[in-house]
């Protein structure tokens, strides 16, 4: 089978996703690979609240949430120094209109589970065990 991420139990992933069914599936994929999941947070406020309350190692960030884009979450993640990837069907040029999204990789949508896991493995790789 697919190689598991290095010591995945040690990593917690914040999932920001406002589409219930997509969030449910992401949680399944991440937990199936041994990650702990924080969320899914469906709004900017929910995400910011979770970020204050709980430590985590990386984030998968949906861009267009019901109340607007998730730029404020991206800014907070950058301020915290937590690695994250975008999960958006928008093109790069559209994403780059929001400064906080620039230089942040986008795994695209729809994304097959293996691509989500590969992106997470790359992000958590250099964070070492028990990053928080």
């Amino acid at each position, binding site marked *: 089978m697919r190689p598991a991420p290095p010591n995945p139990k040690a990593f917690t992933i914040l999932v920001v996703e406002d589409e219930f069914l997509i969030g449910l*599936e992401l949680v399944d994929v991440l937990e199936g690979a041994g990650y702990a999941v924080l969320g899914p947070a469906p709004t900017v406020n929910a995400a910011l609240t979770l970020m204050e309350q709980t430590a985590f190692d990386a984030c998968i960030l949906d861009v267009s949430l019901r109340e607007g884009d998730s730029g404020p979450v991206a800014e907070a993640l950058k301020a915290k120094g937590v690695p994250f990837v975008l999960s958006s069907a928008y093109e790069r040029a559209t994403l780059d209109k929001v400064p906080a999204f620039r230089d942040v990789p986008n795994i695209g949508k729809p994304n097959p589970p293996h691509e989500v896991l590969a992106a997470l493995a790359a992000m958590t790789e250099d964070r070492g065990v028990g990053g928080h």
Partner: protein
Amino acid sequence: MPNSPTDHFEAASTLAVVVSSHEPLLFLSQDLKVLAASASFCRTFGIEPSTVSHKRLSDLGKGEWAMPKLASLLKATASGNARIESYEIDLIRLDQEPRQLVVNACKLDDGDEQRTRLLLAITDVTEGRAEARLKDALIRDRAMLLQEVQHRVANSLQIIASVLMQSARRVQTEEARGHLHNAHHRVMSIASLQRQLSASHDGDVELRAYLIQLCQSLGASMISDPSRLSIEVNVDESVVGADVSVSLGLIVTELVINALKHGFPDEREGMIHVQYGSGENNWKLSVIDDGIGMPAGDNAPKAGLGSGIVEALARNLNGAIQVSDAGPGTNVTISHRNTSGAAPNFLGADSNATIS
């Protein structure tokens, strides 16, 4: 102004030409007095024709033509130092919307050094500019709308893919799970095309980039040991319409899934080749594996949903399916020859290909 007989004579013919012009025109003396204004000028800018003669340009109407920049440009033109070409100014009038004007002026040379005449042509471009702005705005709106639609389509495909994977995890039988996984692959195949389409902007798809992305995605989710099995994609420069590419992509998806599932049991090593090439009136898509080959005769497995889909899609593309022994392995080739000219929307491939 001195009115010598010749002066008067020259002016009469010139004035007649100016007055009858369909374009807004002003015929001016060196000191910017109006010698004649075309009827079209008076009509366009709301000036009573009987009042214009020998009036200063700056006194026309209610003084709205007293524009210092225009006056200095006209003086420069009169002294031969400049020519006004497509100079843009705004005409500001009391209680009226500003008009955007484009003015052109030239010095008329009639051989008399003492007497300088200027011809000033004024075009009101307000409506044209507004129309151009509206058109730009419509094009921007349309592009944004298209992007929103693409975004929604992709999001919906993600929801469908998520639901299928959720179901696949929860069903009890391996067979049902297999069907749900296949359905997931098909959705992802269309999603992959959707990405290529939104990058292309003109509705055409570069087949090579699409099939490479598609097979990478299939391989990543279905091949657990890439050193044992691999997929090689060999596609020419073909560019095809969206409806053709969706069919070709789904055919490749089905055939690659079939080969991976049935061709390489017991940790058998091997390779799957996906090939596509097209000529002026024909194209050929092949998926060739070096696996165990298709059992023939009564032992042949029942044609599953997969091959049914391939048949239907191939028919849709006017393609003939040929299954042959690749010794070892299986070669499935769909070939199309355009004899009737009734080919599906196909935009040709090489530079010498025709558009049918």
